[in-house]
């Protein structure tokens, strides 16, 4: 698997579901290839919309999203983006390996090694099991394998582990971080947890609650790997406090 993700550029991107209801209001930012970006914000601040507009699941009302030299739409059609949702959306009638093979099947791609993708998340042992036989954490890992299977360059995760318990969630975060360190795709994810954002990301974008824009863009210059020691340093705690203040918590 090879990853050389392009930079993503948002220029004055606005999203409005109806004329009066502006979710994002001329957002401009740049996400360089391979970056790990966390997006935090209160409910209704447009986190999901930001992710969807980056991945071209919704069209911006105005402005432009591009990935490298191509438009977001071209990038999506080429399979540069992959999504993970809070719900793993595994198809119950397909075995795990068949679920991981789904993207290749839809894109008519040959030579995609679904088993290797399952191996990445440590689940090659359950390849022939059906999703109903797996725990919530395992389902989410299969969804992660599916997202990584077709060498999408930009992984977009919308509160991927929010429905899981604390322990499973920490474990999956660690696994995600390990895969990111190893493969160097671009990772953009939303979370409600400020500590989670700081412990994972290179950069935290805080969305403002009512204005539909980026309130603050905070660089997380903590050393990697983000061990427990790193997460107890004054620097770490200071960043957490800054972000919480940005969120008016």
């Amino acid at each position, binding site marked *: 698997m090879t990853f050389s993700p392009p930079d993503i550029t948002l220029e004055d991107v606005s999203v409005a579901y109806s004329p009066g209801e502006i979710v994002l209001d001329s957002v401009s930012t740049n996400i360089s290839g391979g970056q790990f970006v966390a997006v935090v914000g209160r409910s209704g601040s447009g986190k999901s919309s930001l992710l969807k507009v980056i991945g071209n699941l919704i069209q911006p009302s105005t402005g432009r999203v591009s990935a490298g030299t191509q438009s977001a739409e071209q990038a999506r059609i080429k399979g540069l983006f*992959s999504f993970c949702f809070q719900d793993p959306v595994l198809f*119950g009638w397909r075995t795990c390996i068949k679920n991981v093979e789904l993207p290749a099947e*839809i894109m008519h791609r040959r030579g995609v090694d679904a088993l290797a993708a399952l191996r990445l998340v440590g689940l090659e042992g359950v390849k022939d099991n059906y999703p*109903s036989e797996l725990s919530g954490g395992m389902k989410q890992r299969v969804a992660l394998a599916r997202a990584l299977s077709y060498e999408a360059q930009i992984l977009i995760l919308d509160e991927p582990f929010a429905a899981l318990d604390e322990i499973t969630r920490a474990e999956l975060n660690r696994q995600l971080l390990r895969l990111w360190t190893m493969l160097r795709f671009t990772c953009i994810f939303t979370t409600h947890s400020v500590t989670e954002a700081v412990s994972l990301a290179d950069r935290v974008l805080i969305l403002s609650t009512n204005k539909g824009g980026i309130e603050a863009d905070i660089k997380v210059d903590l050393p990697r790997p983000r061990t427990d020691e790193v997460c107890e340093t004054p620097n770490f705690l200071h960043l957490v406090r800054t972000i919480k203040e940005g969120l008016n918590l």
Partner: protein
Amino acid sequence: MKSFFLQSTTLLGFLVGWQILIKTAAISPLVLPGPLDVLHAVLHHHRELINETAVTAYEAILGFLGSAIIAYMIAIIFVHVRLLEQAMMPYAIGLKSIPLIALAPLIVMWCGEGVFSKIVMSALVSFWPILVGAVQGLRAIKPDALALMSSLGADKWQVLTKLRVPSSTGYTFAALKIASSLSVVGAVIAELVGSTRGIGHLINVNSYYLHTDLVFAGVAFISAVALALYGGLSVLEGKFRFWHERSID
């Protein structure tokens, strides 16, 4: 096993109670025959019963299959042409809830006393629940599953075959099972109105001659057909829907 024992006991108790009632109240078998009289009629007229049951079963199954295929195809069209669904779905739901059985005399007048009018009647009553159930099933998809498909660049055909159809099986089979019983009702009613063959005809003729025991035997035989259809569909459902979740997970 325990519930099977309990249920068999209930049936046996009912039959024994029925027989005792007939004997003690000295009810004429012309009005209400006992279970033993019915059994007697079955043994003496089994050939006739089987032949007429076969005719009704043929009509019901043909009507059911025809309506199932057409209803599912129309459901697929409805799901893709929103305007058509909006214009017609309320009527489908309305027609599902009214006793179309009342049209039997007209159907027989239009389509004749032969097998054809029975097939039409049977199809007419089983069509609407299947259409409504199939539309619900094809629509009952998590938004995230659709977002996943569109992030992979899936076209409408792929969304239909890989997502909508498999996840519609729950609703569809529930509707098919209801419709299978209705299709038998439709065929019998049309026979009662006017026919030369079938269980409805047998019931008509024998109630005229006060062969009440044979009427009951006819009812028992056609009930067996309805139950067999329902059971067959349950088995088929088990094969098609081996995964446990309601829709997808």
